[in-house]
């Protein structure tokens, strides 16, 4: 198995090849306006072993709302695949998505900062 596919599979526990590109996930996603490519297109890139997926913003715009995971007719946890794509970057040495020391923690509630730290930092 190609390394990208292998890591996504290992982290998410999902078999990306079972996606048949129906686009249901993208149809339900409320954040597509901000995404470089749609969620089902992101999965297609993984299926095609295309590493460029790691440089697009789609997994980072994903808000983990799980609409896609509930609606996928193939039973794929699409949100977990998005998380795997973030995790691959987060686990890279030297990669920093957010420096929490620079975030205005006085203004924001703890629940928001903890959630962001869980999703964007190692």
């Amino acid at each position: 198995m190609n390394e990208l596919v292998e890591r996504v599979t290992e982290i998410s526990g999902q078999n990306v090849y079972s996606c048949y590109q129906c686009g249901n996930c993208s149809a339900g996603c409320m954040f597509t306006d901000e995404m470089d490519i749609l969620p089902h297109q992101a999965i297609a890139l993984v299926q095609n072993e295309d590493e460029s997926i790691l440089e697009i913003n789609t997994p980072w715009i994903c808000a983990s709302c799980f609409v896609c995971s509930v609606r996928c007719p193939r039973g794929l946890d699409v949100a977990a695949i998005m998380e795997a794509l973030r995790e691959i970057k987060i686990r890279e040495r030297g990669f920093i998505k957010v420096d929490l020391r620079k975030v205005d923690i006085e203004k924001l509630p703890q629940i928001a900062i903890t959630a962001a730290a869980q999703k964007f930092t190692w």
Partner: protein
Amino acid sequence: MIIMEVLYYPGCSLRNTYPEFEKSTYEACEKLGIELVEIPEWSCCGVVPSLATDNVMRHLGAVRSFINAQKKGREIGTNVIVVLCSMCYNVLKRVNLILKEEPDTLENVNSFIDDQPDYVPDLRVTHFLTFLKETGFENLEEKVNKPLKGLKVAPYYGCALLRPDRPEGVPIDNPDNPVILESFVRSIGAEPVHFPFRAECCGNYHIVLEPGIVEMRTRKIIGSAKSVKADLILSPCPLCTYNLGRGNESLDKSEQVPVVFFTQLLALALGGKSYLPTEIEDQILKKIGGEKSD
């Protein structure tokens, strides 16, 4: 009169950001004869469930709380944990179900936490709304002495109460067509109004890095509630409440819809202290008073 004791997991938000959520719950529980027994030395749940199946580290906060809950539960004779915050509920429910379904994961976390007895996954994590439903919304109705008649309430579910649907048992209701909040609203005498954005995402953690996304999302949710003439948006979640508040701040006064915790309306309807801002409580009282006189 205490008729029932249950374990209770408060979570950080109720302690440091929204004490009114917890205080109104205690007020309501006192009226209902429910004693919430706080889990000793509970830990932060982590807010969002980790979806990385190869890393159990992010589940440990939840497991530490379960171990303490188990000890306390055996003392008072219950295995039910009641949770108020939607995000905490989602994480605790998921982790508990995963530990029940995956013996390897259970063994892994138990051997990691070696300063405590093992967790035997026999606890049941329940959202307070489910708990109320199981004790019967009809019974609640009987105890309401100030029905919120004429108040139009937009029940906002958000994500964490309804999704994901795996492991089975996480959603507190049908993810595509939930009714539990509407039933709750009826049981306190108010009128639930249907709005299409009731189960849409508020933007979650994006408030930290991309607040523009949250404002865009929440303006749509608020606009949708406004268009069906809601007096209030009912929220079960501290993060949704915060994000909706940011949406309201970005709107003109005339387009805003106040956001309250479901327990605040419950406490009010039971004749207790609601911990609502005076201005909002006055608006509610005016509305229900006005209905009564005609």
